[in-house]
């Protein structure tokens, strides 16, 4: 039995390493051979992978796309998610709390392609009506969908963080005459700050890695975004859309894998940071 479990653990690690190795191996030749410069890849916005005369592999516009959509999404999801977590753990009576938690779980269970669908049909129409934008599939739309998708994650992790704050702290502050709001601001938020930060980071990680929903809702235009109503393309959406048409082994194909490596580095960094933060909490 112990052996079986160890085997599972080891094979999980092997799989992850294997995936990483495979992606790096597919991407490496194009960089090693010098046909595409890493610096250009990271700093140029021109992406013309199929052009005959003017071929360019600059991912900056899509890096900007990923970060702008995620950033905007977090601007909406973080206050909302942390607020909801605070409400659930500190202010909500037990009965509605159960209902709300089930709703959160349902939200988390909606497949991302369905979110994309909602963005494409419902949100885009609303955006066009309200803002007068020429197209409704743009950064704002993608960010709204991403925000809705990451709120359940943020809420559930943030709520855990607040629940982990010992009740004796609340009681101590209340007995000194603090109101519930003062307890929240002055005691709970500082005490739970690591866990709350981890919740936010995992939300960000979700945003960066999400593919289908943003592919469907951001408009898929490779350009440096100037306003929230501009269409953009993200790193993930680009891979999903183009990998099928790039001939295996071509430069284009390898640059898409390079994009995959970049994505993995970003999400890994975010997750490791979140993990370290959470572990920091447990130690103290």
């Amino acid at each position, binding site marked *: 039995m112990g052996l079986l479990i160890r085997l599972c653990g080891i094979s999980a690690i092997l799989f992850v390493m294997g995936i990483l190795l495979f992606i790096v191996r597919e991407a490496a030749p194009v960089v090693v051979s010098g046909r595409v410069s890493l610096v250009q890849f990271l700093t140029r916005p021109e992406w013309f992978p199929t052009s005959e005369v003017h071929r360019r592999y600059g991912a900056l516009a899509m890096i900007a796309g990923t970060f702008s959509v995620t950033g905007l999404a977090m601007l909406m999801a973080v206050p909302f998610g942390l607020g909801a977590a605070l409400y659930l753990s500190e202010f909500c009576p*037990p009965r509605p709390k159960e209902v709300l938690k089930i709703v959160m779980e349902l939200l988390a269970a909606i497949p991302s392609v369905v979110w994309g669908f909602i963005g494409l049909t419902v949100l885009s129409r609303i955006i066009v009506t309200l803002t007068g934008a020429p197209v409704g599939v743009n950064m704002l739309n993608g960010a709204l969908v991403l925000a809705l998708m990451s709120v359940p994650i943020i809420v559930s992790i943030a709520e855990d963080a607040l629940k982990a704050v010992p009740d004796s*702290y609340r009681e*101590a*502050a209340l007995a*000194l005459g603090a109101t519930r709001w003062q307890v929240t601001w002055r*005691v709970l938020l500082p005490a739970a700050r690591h866990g709350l930060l981890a919740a936010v980071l995992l939300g960000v990680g979700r945003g960066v890695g999400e593919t289908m929903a943003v592919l469907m809702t951001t408009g898929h235009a490779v350009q440096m975004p100037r306003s929230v109503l501009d269409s953009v393309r993200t790193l993930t959406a680009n891979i999903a859309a183009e990998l099928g048409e790039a001939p295996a082994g071509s430069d284009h194909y390898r640059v898409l894998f390079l994009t995959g490596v970049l994505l993995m580095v970003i999400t890994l960094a975010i997750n490791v940071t979140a993990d370290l933060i959470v572990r920091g909490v447990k130690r103290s």
Partner: protein
Amino acid sequence: MIPPDDLAIETRGLNLWYGSFQALRNVNLRIRRGIITALIGPSGCGKTTLLRCFNRINERDPNVRTTGEVRILGHEIHGPHVALEELRRHVGMVFQRPNPLPLSVYENVVFGLRVHCSAGALTRDELDAAVESALTEVGLWRDLRDRLDRRATDLQLEQQQKLCIARLLPLKPELILMDEPCSALDVEGTHAIEELMFSLRERYTIVIVTHNMAQARRASDECVFMLLGELVEHRRTADLFLAPSDPRTAEYIEGRYG
């Protein structure tokens, strides 16, 4: 009979239920101002429950239901216009487990001032002075004056409990409620807290719950004996221990309930 002005706490017909379990039964209690009163009785008799009625902190539990009257310094505390925050400003509480807030020593001491005064109302100098005088009073100033920004939760238990007393003082409470304040401490710590109680006695009314008969004898002026949610006997400590008037009290102090 105690003149009404000398009364710190008065309860009339106080009953309390946790759900359907009745933890306090018709408690009629009159606690004098400016002295130390000990609440004693076997485990589970309702000492903590009674103490937590006096600052209404037990209302945090939605299952709790109370009937009857509780007057603190002549004011009924269950009235519709009673502000809980104000009540708790006047009635401080020290808990069984030291529970300093996860903030610095300094912020723990000024926490009460911060929550009760509007942001601009206190100057840095006033806060500093409040910290120095509160910590001096509990005997922590010499040890901690250079470490005011340390996390209070990293202190030794005895220091933590002293800090929990110190943080009540800037609010100038009338009453200090202590629920077995020494049960987490060693002999020396217990002794230090008792000394501290004596030094605070004249200016504050203190009610202390204790399991420790010797402590009740040493440290209190009056003593209240409870059993199964009822108040059995309330007299001067010396009298209660020398000549209990109720046979149940006698059995308890002879150690029959443990």
